[in-house]
């Protein structure tokens, strides 16, 4: 994966919330990635969005800052660092819209071989977990570090 990434990231000391600044054609936009415990033991929800004036994550914002790949690559690196620190945690993620879920599906599909060397990659489909394969239409991803 040879993508440009944002390399200066702020984080909480429990390593669950990450902020970085997207710089592009619409200026500097504060982005936030948060991992939150779900009702299911060991599963954490990944949220990504712009930080709004109330200091909340707005995951429906359309930034159009011209740096989509750089933002996604940065999130991928954050996930890598997070799962290195917490290798036993499952991460569930999906887009806030069908189009965004499709974008994530394409991004994961494009790098499936490399990503599969590091993660177990499962797809939530028809209320079941199945191994993710390219072009599979899914509701969400569930991933976890592979045990080495």
């Amino acid at each position: 994966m040879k993508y440009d990434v944002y390399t200066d990231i702020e984080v909480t000391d429990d390593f669950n919330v990450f902020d970085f600044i997207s710089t592009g054609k619409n200026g500097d936009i504060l982005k936030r990635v948060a991992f939150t415990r779900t009702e299911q033991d060991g599963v954490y929800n990944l949220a990504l969005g712009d930080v709004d004036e109330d200091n909340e994550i707005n995951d429906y914002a359309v930034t159009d800052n011209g740096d989509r790949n750089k933002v996604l690559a940065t999130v991928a690196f954050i996930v890598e660092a997070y799962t290195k620190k917490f290798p036993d945690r499952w991460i569930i993620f999906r887009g806030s819209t069908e189009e965004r879920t499709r974008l994530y599906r394409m991004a994961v599909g494009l790098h499936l071989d490399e990503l599969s060397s590091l993660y177990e990659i499962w797809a939530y489909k028809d209320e079941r977990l199945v191994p993710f394969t390219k072009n599979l239409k899914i509701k969400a991803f569930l991933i976890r570090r592979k045990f080495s």
Partner: protein
Amino acid sequence: MKRVIKHKSELAGQEITFTVSEKLNKLKGKVLAPKKLADANKLLRKLKTPLPK
């Protein structure tokens, strides 16, 4: 003095610097993106297969 954590990507070989932020620490304990979390919980409740071992 700021606490800094460096992470080198296994996938790309690049290094990222994480800086612990006191401002962000104030968010600890707060439920972030609650709608997204509720959606995730809803999906997980409907799951008919167990998490892989």
